[in-house]
C-alpha cells in the first residue's frame, strides 16, 4: 500500500459511494495500493479522526489479498513487535460483507499540522517530506533511528516487513511510524519475493537482511534527496555530504546495508541501529575494519586459553540493549547511575547502549524537569530491548 499516492476525493475503490464500515463515517480516500485503500474516517461516537484501511475480501482473478492481510495482522498481534512506538498502531480489525478493514491513527498533515478533514489534507509520509530535496543531517539521523527502532522490534519478534520504503513511513504526532503490515511474515528461508521491486535486494531473499537493504536505500534517499533509481550516486549533494561528518557516516551505513552479498550487510535492524548509534566504528574504512577483525580473530584464538582462565574468575557477558520510551528523550539510569556515552554525552531514548554487563539492573527513566520513574528490574542477559512509558 502506497499511502502517499493520492486518489480523487469522494471516490472509493470502485469509483462510487463510500463503503459502509461499522461505527465510522468514511470521509474520503487518502491512499491507494495494489490491494486496498486507506480512507480518512470519523468515529461516529467520539468524532475522532482515524485512518481505515480497506481490503476487498474477494478480487476476481487474484489471490485473496484479505486472507494474506489477516495472516499478517494475526502474526503481528501475536508478536511483541506490534506495540512499538515506531510502528503504526492498529486499534481495531473487522470485516464487513465486502471488506476486511482495520483502524489506525491518521498521519499528520504533510504541512506538519495534525490530520484534518479539510480538502487540503495530505498524509505526512517520508516520501512526501522528501519531494526531491535532501533532509537535514539531524532529520536524517532522527528518522533513521526511528525507522530502525520500529523495524528492529519486528525483527526481534521474528518477523520481516518486506515493504520498507518512504511511502510506508508515516508521521503521527511528528513521530515516524513504520506502516503497512500487509506483507509482514515470519522469518523463513522460503519467504516469497514480494513488496516494492525497487527496494528489493539483488539476491532476491526477502529476509531480515532484505529489510536492512531497503532501510539502507531509505537512508540514501534522505541524505541525497535522490530516488533509489540513482543509488549510490550522490549527484549534486557530493560536497554537502562530504563536508558533513553526520551525513558521511549515514552514507556509510547505507552502503553497508546495501551490500550485494547479504552476509556482508548488518544481520538485522537491531545491528543496523547499533551501527547508527556507534559513529566511531563507522568512521573506519571497511578494509581497515576487516583487518582489525582479522587481527581480532587471531588475538581471540590466541587468547583462548587465557580467556578460559579468565572466565573462571569472571562470568561477565556483554550485550547491547535498546532503550525506547514513549515519548522519547528520556534519560536512562541503571541501578541509579545516569548512562553516558564514551564522550560524556548523556544517552536519551530511543538509543542502544553497547557493551553493558549482562546482568539484572534496576532501570529508571527521567524527563528533564520531571521526577525519575522506575520501569522495573530487567535481566539484560535475557532482554535486548526495554520499552516503557511513564506511569
Amino acid at each position, binding site marked *: 500500500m502506497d499511502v502517499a*499516492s*493520492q*486518489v480523487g476525493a469522494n471516490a472509493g475503490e470502485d469509483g462510487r459511494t463510500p463503503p459502509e464500515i461499522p461505527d465510522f463515517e468514511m470521509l474520503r480516500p487518502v491512499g*491507494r495500493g495494489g490491494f486496498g485503500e486507506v480512507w480518512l474516517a470519523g468515529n461516529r461516537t467520539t468524532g475522532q479522526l482515524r485512518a481505515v484501511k480497506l481490503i476487498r475480501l474477494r478480487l476476481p482473478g487474484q489471490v485473496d489479498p484479505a486472507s494474506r492481510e489477516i495472516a499478517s495482522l494475526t502474526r503481528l498481534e501475536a508478536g511483541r513487535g506490534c506495540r512499538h512506538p515506531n510502528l503504526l498502531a492498529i486499534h481495531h480489525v473487522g470485516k464487513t460483507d465486502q471488506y476486511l478493514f482495520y483502524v489506525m491513527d491518521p498521519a499528520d498533515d504533510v504541512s506538519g499540522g495534525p490530520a484534518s478533514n479539510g480538502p487540503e489534507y495530505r498524509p505526512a509520509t517520508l516520501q512526501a517530506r*522528501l*519531494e*526531491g*530535496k535532501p533532509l537535514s543531517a539531524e532529520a536524517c539521523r532522527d528518522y533513521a533511528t526511528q525507522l530502525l527502532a520500529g523495524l528492529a522490534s519486528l525483527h526481534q519478534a521474528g518477523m520481516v516487513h518486506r515493504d520498507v520504503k518512504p511511502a510506508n513511513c508515516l508521521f503521527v504526532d511528528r513521530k515516524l511510524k513504520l506502516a503497512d503490515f500487509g506483507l509482514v511474515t515470519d522469518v523463513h528461508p522460503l519467504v516469497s519475493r514480494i513488496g516494492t*521491486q525497487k527496494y528489493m535486494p*539483488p539476491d532476491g531473499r526477502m529476509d531480515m537482511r532484505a529489510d536492512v537493504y531497503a532501510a539502507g536505500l531509505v537512508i540514501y534517499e534522505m541524505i*541525497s*534527496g*535522490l*530516488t533509489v*533509481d*540513482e*543509488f*549510490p*550516486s*550522490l*549527484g*549534486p549533494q*557530493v560536497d554537502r*555530504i*562530504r563536508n558533513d561528518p553526520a551525513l*558521511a557516516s549515514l*552514507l*556509510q551505513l547505507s*552502503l*553497508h546495508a*546495501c*551490500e*550485494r552479498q547479504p552476509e556482508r550487510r548488518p544481520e538485522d535492524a537491531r545491528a543496523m541501529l547499533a551501527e547508527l548509534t556507534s559513529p566511531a566504528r563507522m568512521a*573506519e*574504512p*571497511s*578494509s*581497515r575494519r576487516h583487518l582489525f577483525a582479522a587481527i581480532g580473530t587471531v588475538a581471540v584464538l590466541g587468547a583462548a586459553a587465557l580467556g578460559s582462565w579468565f572466565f573462571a574468575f569472571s562470568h561477565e557477558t556483554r550485550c547491547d540493549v535498546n532503550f525506547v520510551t514513549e515519548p522519547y528523550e528520556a534519560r536512562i539510569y541503571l541501578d541509579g547511575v545516569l548512562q553516558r556515552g564514551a564522550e560524556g554525552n548523556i544517552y536519551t531514548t530511543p538509543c542502544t547502549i553497547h557493551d553493558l554487563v549482562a546482568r539484572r539492573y534496576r532501570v529508571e527513566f527521567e524527563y528533564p524537569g520531571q521526577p525519575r520513574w522506575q520501569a522495573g528490574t530487567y535481566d539484560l542477559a535475557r532482554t535486548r530491548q526495554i520499552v516503557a512509558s511513564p506511569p
Partner: protein
Amino acid sequence: MATSTRATLLERLRDGANALAWEEFFGHYWPLVYGFARRRGCSEHTAEEIVQDVMLAVFQHRDVYQYDPGRGRFRDWLGTVVRNKVAEHRRKPANRLHGAGGDSERGAVEEPAGEEDADEAWEAIFEQGLLLALLDVVRRESSARAYLAFELVTFEGLSGKEAGRLTGLSRNAVYKASRRILDRLVDLGAPYREEGRLVDRIKQALEARPSAAVRRSVTTRVQQTMGGR
C-alpha cells in the same frame, strides 16, 4: 543494454495491465521525452505535461506499434509522437501568448527553439539516454561502494583518499575499483572509445539529466494520469 528497444518489452506493453512493463518503459523513456522537450525550448512545467501526454498516447496506441524491424525503429515512432506533442503545445493559444518571452507564472512557455533540427535533437537526446544506460549497466554490475568510488573519482574529481573516506574503501581499493569500472565502461561503449571522449560525453549526459525534484514531480503526475487505467 537498451541499444534498441527490446521486442519483449514492447510485447509486454501491449498488455495494459502489465504494471512492471509500464514502469520499465516509463523509467527508461521519460527522461528522453523530458530532455527533448526542454531542448526544444519548453519550460519545465510544459516538458512535464508533454511527458504525461506522451505516456498516455503510447498507452492508448500500444496496439498500433508492433515490433517488426522491417517497419522501422520504435525510437523513430516514439520520436514522431514526441515531436507531435511538442508541436501541439506550441499551438496552444496560452503558450503562443507567452511564446516570445520568459516564463509565465506556471512556466507554460514555449521559448523559440534554437537552430537545432528536431530530428538531430531527438537523436542527441537518445544518444544521451544510451550513454546513461551504459552507466546503468556498470552500476548494476558493481558493488555500491565500488561504483560510488568510481563516480567520485571519475566524474567529481575527488582524490582517492577522499573517495575512500566517503565509501569506506582504502585508497588502493578506490583506484582499483575505478579502473576496473572505467575499463568495463570503455569496453561497453566501444564506438566512443576511438573518439577518446566517452567520459566527457557521459558527464554531459549526467548534467543534462532531470533533477530529483523533476523526477518526483513527473512520476507523481504520470501515476495520477495512468493510475486509473
